[in-house]
């Protein structure tokens, strides 16, 4: 139990862990409460890493496999924290042929992440999308709500600098 708590405290504050435990406690004796617990937990913690899933499994007396199966099944749940900013690279056909692929590769290299991952410093979460409907502007990169059209690898660094 203690080890498990230490594991949690590496990523979350004691207040967050207390809230998680409170959620589990509240649902403990209600059958079929895994999904609401996960939902509430994600609201408090923002993401559900293995340590949290284990805590929930233990609290609700469910197999780890069950919790993991549910967390990965619903796209709503995420096991990785979100970055402060979200970068989406369009890999729809138009953007792809106009250099989207090169942009994506470069981003992956500079940020050290793969599709769906968040940088270690939690600055960026990196995703790819299929066509944003802005084909005329391709290749398109969207950071948070800002659309950056006609992106070039050379321009990338400078653009990223505006998002800290």
């Amino acid at each position, binding site marked *: *139990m203690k080890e*498990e708590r230490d594991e949690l405290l590496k990523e979350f504050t004691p207040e967050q862990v207390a809230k998680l435990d409170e959620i589990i406690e509240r649902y403990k004796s209600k*059958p079929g409460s895994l999904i609401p617990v996960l939902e509430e937990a994600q609201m408090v913690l923002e993401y559900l890493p*293995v340590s949290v*899933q284990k805590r929930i*499994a*233990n609290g*609700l*007396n*469910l*197999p*780890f*496999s*069950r*919790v*993991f*199966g549910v967390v*990965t*099944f619903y*796209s709503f749940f995420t096991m990785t924290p979100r970055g402060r900013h979200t970068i989406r690279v369009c890999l729809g056909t138009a953007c792809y042929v106009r250099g989207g692929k090169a942009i994506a590769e470069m981003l992956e290299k500079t940020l050290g992440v793969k599709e769906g991952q968040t940088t270690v410093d939690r600055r960026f979460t990196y995703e790819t999308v299929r066509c944003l409907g802005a084909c005329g502007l391709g290749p398109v990169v969207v950071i948070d709500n800002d659309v950056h059209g006609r992106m070039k690898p050379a321009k990338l660094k400078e653009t990223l600098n505006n998002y800290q």
Partner: protein
Amino acid sequence: MALVTVTIDDIKVEVESGTTVYEAAKKAGINIPTLCAWFEGGHTPGQCRVCVAEVEGQRNLVASCVFPVADGMKIHTKSERVRKARRLVVELLLADHPQECTYCVRNGICELQRVAEQVGVKEVRFSRTEFPEEGMIDRSSPSVVRDGRKCIGCMRCVTVCENVQTVSVLTPAWRGSEMRVVPAFDLPLAETNCVACGQCILACPVGALYEKDDVEKVWEALEDPTKHVVVQEAPAIRAALGEEFGLPPGTLVTGKMIAALRRLGFDKVFDTNFTADLTIVEEGNELVKRVKEGGKLPMITSCSPGWIKFCEHFYPDLLDHLSTCKSPQQMFGALAKTYYAEFAGIDPANIVVVSIMPCTAKKFEAQRPEMKDSGFRDVDFVLTTRELARMIREAGIDFTNLPDEEPDAPMGEYTGAGTIFGATGGVMEAALRSAYYIITGKIMPSLDIMPVRGLEGVKEASLDIPPIGRVKVAVAHGLGNARKLMDLIREGKADYTFIEVMCCPGGCVGGGGEPIPTTMETRAKRAGALYVDDSQVQKIRQSHENPSVIKLYKNFLHEPLGHKSHKLLHTHYTPRGTNIPHREN
């Protein structure tokens, strides 16, 4: 239940309402192909759609394994529409499946192959050619290999692991085309609470789960002239090996098994049944000691390594209930490199001990760090029944026409009590025969203890042992059943003196290393063969009367539970972390 009449391909049948189309067709003499369904395990996810049929009035084809019939229903199972749909389903499966049949472990006994043949697939119009192994094959476990590339997502393994064994390691994860069946958190199997039982292998219709193959290492040892290679075979091998060579389940092939092992080149062919008898003498004495001296009761058997690992994970607080006796396999290894080495004047460093086991967990057990009391790794290699069969085929040995041969001395002789170890209830029966004698000095009025035999999940019996009085015992097989007894102990409600637990349904004859298919029916037949061995083949039926065991005590061990026994034949257990929950609510 009300009876209804349905017409299937113009054949009228009467069935109970609620029966599935699949069952009703069966009654009409029609075998609808199935793939994801595992009826014996109550597993019909209706997922693969290989079993589709046409029901008049239904727009879409129905999955016959789950669709219930209704009165007057007209069903077609061989119309063009049905045949085309089934073929398409199988073609799509094959398109996403490595075409490795010729060197796949399931070649010839694969349900996907069988179904492809049955539905008449002649080509695969969408074939993919690349199936990279990277990240898809998990070889971390010493017992079970998972090849995600061949997984068809039927989830049978999930059901057996969760419902039958209540270990719940495996789960479907992610969704849609990303869906994969993996251990929790996608961890390597070796890092989970998997007990290595291999029941998932038996449940898997394809080659996505299989035993870790150690055949090459054994060939290597046999080729090495500096090595003296000895082999032991578990009781359940002789009752099942014949199936690999076309003999019906329940054929006892002891003599041919021994002959085949000799032809493979083993220097000595001994028998695990010998150390099964020894286990009974040690365990029987341990039980009597616990009863007399107020030791921890109920005492629980410890010869099933999957069961031991399960206990270490889920009941670490109850480990002192386990008998300290090693399993027969490990007693054999420890003695082969001490007693036998001395007897034969061979340097134990040059002795290689190979076990033939019905069990994948035995591979794990042999590698446990503490299993080296002989000063060496006690058991070097463990092969399952299936691996042995593969070696015999590779060597071109005409198994069914082999003469019957006898095992070697001094570790080959066994009794009827030793042989029934392979069936659920057998260890209990064998132990009671000897414990009765140890306590009373007399032979039990009847050596057959019927209530502990058979495939009921939890069995109970009680018997009078004069000075002690009535002794209550229980037997469980399959970990879900074992769990029931363990929970009773935890609650302080178990008034048993002695409990036998076997990890696998049916006991070792239903082990994860046994021939495929292993069903409840084959389990019962194999157990039957062992009871025939006990009552009709073996002349001695009580372990303590085994002349080779008596000699072993006289010349080497000196006494049960003595100093040498303690060092070589007994062990301790490792709590593996509490708080691994197991099932919903």
